[in-house]
């Protein structure tokens, strides 16, 4: 109706539109500029953009691989080897960081003055030294001080540690797939048992000892496959063999290379400090009244911890801890500094040097990490929504 008002609306719309159009225009221009330059540069070097190189023969070896790989395989397979190595060191790191972090975090709340001080100093020392320096320290200083192959440190004659790495027995399975199926079945069964137990508790007030039943299933079911399914397991113990007059090596068994040891050590010790702080904050964050209320309705100490304190503490602990897991995975890229063949070293290092395809390779590497991060943050958002306190 009012002409004046109408005009005002329009001007407001323009005010919103102009910066947006400018932003988009700027981004598009930058992309066009970069693309033209990249095309010119690649033209000068006689290469064209494309991912065809992935199927070419890589012709380089990788010192440590979880799958069968040698120089005759393709670049795509080399990428896979690097990715698996990244995942391997991340999983090992996350496992030990969690154990160490939870222990230290709880220790910091201990009544024992010595224990809480020791935990505090652990956190203060390892949090404030750059991770890369810790990796260097373990790899170049600490592990290099280990004895030579001939004088290896002997762990009960089955495992040996020396400057070349850590030699552990190889597990030799028959009917391994059956064993894995039984494990999966056991986990599914435990899931249903705990659901059923929760239903019984909520509806009928019956307490079912879920923990012991789960433990029984977890060990019992795989054990049955040994008895009935023909699954066998034997160990191949590494043995010292003499190659020439002065050269000794351990053969048989699995070699854990020092790069992996030092990387996993540094990653887990560094990340554990942050997890410890999260755990401490989480336990401190549970209101004291909650514990008192639980005690006043007659729950036992174990029940209070399990049913009242932990669910609330976990709600505080888990989001920042997942973030730390993500950081650990990203930090595992520092492997490149000590030549552990992770995705950065194998793909963004060796493969890039050989092919010269900087744009494709760096993009693939970054996209891999990006998709990993984004999928975890999507999962975290879902989890947070699920765990958020539902208020009416």
């Amino acid at each position, binding site marked *: 109706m009012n002409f004046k008002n109408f005009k005002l609306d329009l001007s407001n719309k323009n005010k919103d539109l102009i910066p947006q159009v400018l932003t988009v225009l700027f981004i598009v221009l930058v992309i066009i500029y970069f693309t033209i330059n990249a095309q010119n540069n690649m033209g000068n070097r006689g290469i064209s953009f494309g991912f065809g190189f992935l199927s070419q023969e890589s012709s380089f070896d990788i010192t440590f691989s979880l799958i069968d790989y040698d120089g005759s395989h393709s670049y795509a397979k080399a990428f896979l080897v690097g990715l698996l190595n990244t995942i391997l060191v991340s999983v090992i790191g996350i496992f030990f960081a969690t154990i160490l972090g939870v222990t230290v975090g709880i220790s910091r709340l201990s009544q024992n003055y010595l224990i809480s001080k020791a935990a505090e100093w652990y956190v203060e020392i390892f949090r404030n030294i750059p*991770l890369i320096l810790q990796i260097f320290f373990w790899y170049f200083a600490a592990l290099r001080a280990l004895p030579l192959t001939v004088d290896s440190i002997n762990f009960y004659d089955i495992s040996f540690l020396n400057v070349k790495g850590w030699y552990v027995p190889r597990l030799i399975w028959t009917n391994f797939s059956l064993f894995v199926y039984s494990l999966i079945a056991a986990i599914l069964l435990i899931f249903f048992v705990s659901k059923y137990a929760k239903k019984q508790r909520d509806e009928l007030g019956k307490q079912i000892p879920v923990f012991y039943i789960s433990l029984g299933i977890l060990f019992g079911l795989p054990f049955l496959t040994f008895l009935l399914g023909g699954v066998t397991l034997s160990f191949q113990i590494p043995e010292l063999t003499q190659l020439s007059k002065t050269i000794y090596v351990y053969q048989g068994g699995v070699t854990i290379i020092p790069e992996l040891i030092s990387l996993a050590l540094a990653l887990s010790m560094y990340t554990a400090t942050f997890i410890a702080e999260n755990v401490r904050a989480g336990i401190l964050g549970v209101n004291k009244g909650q514990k008192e209320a639980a005690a006043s309705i007659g729950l036992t100490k174990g029940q209070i911890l399990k049913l009242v304190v932990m669910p609330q503490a976990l709600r505080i602990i888990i989001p920042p801890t997942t973030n730390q897991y993500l950081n650990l995975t990203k930090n595992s890229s520092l492997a490149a500094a000590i030549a552990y063949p992770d995705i950065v070293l194998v793909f963004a290092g060796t493969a890039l040097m050989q092919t010269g395809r900087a744009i494709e390779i760096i993009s693939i590497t970054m996209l891999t990490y990006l998709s*990993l991060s*984004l999928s975890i943050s999507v999962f975290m958002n879902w989890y947070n929504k699920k765990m958020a306190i539902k208020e009416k």
Partner: protein
Amino acid sequence: MKFKLAKPNKENLNTFVTLGSVLILVGFFDFLANTFLDLNFTGFLPGGLSFLTPIIIGVMGLHFIRIEFSGNRLLDKINTNFNSSNFNAFLSLLVIFALIKYIPPILNWFIFDADFAGNTKQDCTSGGACWVFVKVWLNRFVYGMYPDTEQWRINTAFFMLFALVGASFFVPAKLKKYLLIFLLFVYPIIGLKLISGGDFGLEYIETGAWGGLSLTFIVSAFALILCFPVGMFLALGRRSNLPAIRYTSIGFIELWRGVPLITVLFMSAVMFPMFLPDGTYVDKLIRVLVAITLFEAAYMAEVIRGGLQALPKGQYEAAKSLGMGYWRMHFLIVLPQALKLVIPGIANTFLALVKDTPLIFVVGLLELAGMVNLAKTNPEWLGMAMEGYVFAGLVFWVICYAMSRYSQNLEKKLSTER
């Protein structure tokens, strides 16, 4: 009757304390004799048990002195802090014994057996740490490959910085603003010009020669100053009502936060030159600074966004009701308050930034950790890795610990003010 006797009680206080103390002393004596005199009194016991004897005896002793409300202040203090249960007593003894066992060798290596005098590796004879290595290389660890005769320029630049920061504590509040502006906008240019040279009769020194601890400070300081405004605009962009700007900011932030810094540095080293016209050369240090700035700006944006979200809505509404536009509202009302809220977060981001600087070795720039790596491969100084990394670790630790303490204090101070 026998059972009652073993259970410590207040009536027989003296008996139990005497018994307990004797047992604890025996435990300690056994342990000390074992550690320092190489005497094993319990060698006749099987391996594991012999190893644990001092702890077992000690725990028994601590069990006897565990008497609640004994009336003795010292005893009560020991019991509540170190000896509240058998498990705690065990842990306490474990920590004490571990300290006694491992601290002396470490101290010996570090100080008492260490070599300080001399100029070559051959002067290190006593078996401890060879600090001669650090002494000889100290110049390189601090200044990198920067020519010796020109190092006064780095010193001057840093001295100016300290003088300016120190002065900012003493000048009156009115001048403080100008000093801050000078410090943030004018000083960096002066400092950079002083160190790089090329004008005013100063010899030009290429960035490849910069290095060591001074480079750590240069990179982290510039990255912080540069990433702050970028992060601020990204944070505002992420909360903007305009979809194009919001999604651009979200995409930008999530992209950098999703990848490791080392791949970003790789990108700046090998991929970025491909995107520039043929023949253009951008200095290594500038490329690194841009990469680190963009990377840290994404983290800074999230920190600042936290502050923006924590600010009560009433502040925005009040500003709007006064007729303020978007920019005036943000720069006069919202940001000053939001930034104050997140000062600890900013300090933590800066801490992470300092800890990330060693990664610039990827493009061939060597700050402290990189210089140590270089020095330990020098044929005349092989086998000095431990000394080098311990020194670098100590330097970084002192810097980072001081900063984290400062940020914690700030956090406490700010939280009480609210």
